[in-house]
């Protein structure tokens, strides 16, 4: 299903993945665990085709084809799905519209019939019950004013509707209560099948109690430092990541990473810019002038 081979990826000038290798066979669920900042989200974003991450070496083969050569939407139509660690808000776009646009775009790309409104509504109704989501939430704009838990459920709902062959879940379990955790676990279990696989990225072992993986990989400092069976997760929970004898990796200070994030967002903002508030004479005025992306 998925072969990641010596993958190097950078953002700006700093390399974050220093040669990640990993294979997920058909029908298997693998977990990737690791401390904060070890590159888990970077790996997930690279698989989904996120822009500012640059692949500087290695390859990713999905179903026998070069995944890295595909546009994000092509990857999605081919069955790759990423549940975002931080799902984005899309003000003004109703969730129902978003879901239907996504599903039909994928179906069009695969040469399948688009789903009509009635069939679509029926489909959504079935799936939203699985994730225990109110219909009213779906009439609101995508993730707009959704709580953290609602956003995560929304990711799982999207996964259930789009039925990917490879689901990558980036810390979908973080910050969830036990009920929501079960929704995530059940969602993945529902999709489970001989030709579907999943990569569960997680910081904790909690999710893996509900969803036992075939393999567990530990990502630390931009490399897979250990791989093992489900027991590895238990061991990590007991002893923490600190005890790992990780091979030496070039130290990257947190501040370097932060600095480069700053640089990138500044670049984005400066393109759109401006606006001034002119406040004359009198007294009070709370002017907020913002730049960057408009919503």
């Amino acid at each position, binding site marked *: 299903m998925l072969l990641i081979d010596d993958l190097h990826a950078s953002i700006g000038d700093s390399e974050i993945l220093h040669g990640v290798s990993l294979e997920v066979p058909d029908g298997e669920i693998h977990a990737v665990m690791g401390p904060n900042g070890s590159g888990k989200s970077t790996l997930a974003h690279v698989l989904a085709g996120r822009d500012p991450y640059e692949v500087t070496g290695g390859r990713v083969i999905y179903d026998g084809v070069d995944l890295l050569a595909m546009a994000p*939407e092509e990857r999605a139509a081919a069955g790759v799905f990423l549940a975002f660690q931080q799902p984005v808000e899309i003000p003004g776009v109703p969730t129902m*519209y978003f879901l*239907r646009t996504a*599903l039909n*775009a994928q179906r069009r790309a695969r040469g399948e019939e688009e789903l009509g409104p009635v069939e679509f509504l029926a489909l959504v109704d079935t799936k939203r019950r699985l994730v225990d989501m109110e219909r009213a939430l779906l009439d609101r704009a995508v993730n707009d004013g959704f709580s953290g838990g609602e956003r995560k459920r929304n990711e799982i709902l999207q996964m259930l509707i789009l039925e990917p062959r490879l689901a990558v879940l980036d810390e979908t379990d973080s910050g969830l209560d036990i009920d929501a955790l079960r929704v995530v676990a059940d969602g993945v279990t529902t999709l489970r099948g001989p030709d579907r696989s999943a990569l569960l990225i997680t910081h904790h072992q909690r999710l893996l109690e509900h969803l036992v993986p075939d393999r567990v990989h530990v990502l630390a400092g931009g490399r897979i430092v250990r791989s093992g069976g489900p027991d590895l997760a238990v061991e990590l929970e007991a002893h923490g990541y600190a005890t790992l004898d990780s091979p030496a990796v070039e130290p990257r200070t947190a501040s370097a990473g932060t600095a480069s994030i700053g640089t990138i967002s500044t670049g984005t903002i400066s393109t759109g810019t*401006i606006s*001034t508030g002119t406040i004359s004479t009198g*007294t009070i005025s709370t002017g907020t002038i913002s730049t960057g992306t*408009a919503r």
Partner: protein
Amino acid sequence: MTAMTRPATARRPPSGTGVGMGVQVPERAREPEWLNAARRQAVAWVDANGFPSTKHEDWRYTKLDSVLALPLAASSGRGAEDGPGSVSSSDLPTPQLGVPRIVVVNGGMVPELSTLGTSLPGGVRVESMAGAVRRPEGRFQQLWTRRLGGYPHALRALNDAEALDAVVIDLPARTVVEDPIEVVFVSMPTGDARWSHPRLIVVAGARASATLVETYLSVAGAPSVTNALTQVELGTEAELVHYVLQGERTDSFHFSSLEGHLAEGSRLSSRLLATGGRIGRHEVDVVLAGEGSQVDLDGLFLTGAGQHHDNPVLVEHAAPGCTSRQLYKGVVTSDGHGVFNGHLVVRPGADGTDAVQVNKNLLLSERAEVDTRPRLEINADDVACSHGAAVGRLDPEALFYLRSRGVPEREARAVLVSGFAHEILERFGSGPIRRHAEELAAAAGLIVLDEDHCSSGAVTAGTVHPGRGGRAQ
């Protein structure tokens, strides 16, 4: 078919901006003396003050040169006495709102094309000044001359000088008009005459309430200049919901103004959708004159290739305890230029003012520009005022989110643009006015995010480039 019987008044072409234009006093023999005098006074104002140049604070970004290069002659309208004319109902968009519908061509109301029906409750009067000035009641005189001489710029004076007609909608106290009243303004150049000066006067008595829709179109032919003025006077606790759908041809010029005067406890909501015009400028001047009156102003301008949209908004809090809300959004593509010039004034004594002014803009191309000037002027204590402006481009994270779900980039961009516009469009309600607005927006390239999820995702918005940005002041 041509049957333009009223001769256009010939004018000298302007000799430049900022000087007297040599506008002549039109001869309208059948008009009463007070109206002729008012027209002379307006013309004298234009002569004395000239047309605004970009040195004029409110005209900083809008050059009138190309407009004034057109002959100043006004196109003839079709007064009630004119007989069959050159606009037929087939030239007009199919009525979507039903009756009552008033059609105004080149500033003159056309009764044959208008349908008042029986839908108006008793006491409500819709009248054309051209047919009614001869009556001795003095009502028109009072409405017309109320603010003679106090012009912010020459175009308003020109409307006083030149308006062929005025449609007057009179809502007596406590009348509630359920159906929206639609006024369709058609600009249709006749020969060299390009200008028209439509005038609409709405007077609502105490606790009256109505919905009014102004639709502006220009029919095929040479570029026209619309210079419209709508005056709204709301009595105590009266309520008017007002819409302006500006969909003129993109080679025409559109100037319109809304003047609102709000008495105690009254409420005006006015929503603009502007897609048309080479220049499209819609001014709003609202005076919150009575205690506790409220105004909500929303605007959406979709500005494309070769277009310039200017939105000057002046809200004056002149009484205590009034509320004002402004939300204007602009979507600017290609080499379009959008302007928001919002001015909020709190007069001394207007304590308890609650005002919010927001302008947000989306730039979709390298060459697109927006100038935004939110201004507050506060001369009272105990006020809650806030304002903000933003100019930006599409959120790359949201774009990636959509693409990661399988939506191709072009379509994903179009969806985000529509999401941005949605906040305003949804304020057009959920009925025929909303559909009318959505059709206009769709014709300007926006995809419509249906609430009932029935549309297939047609993509019409163009490609998007990282924006270069607007200009700071």
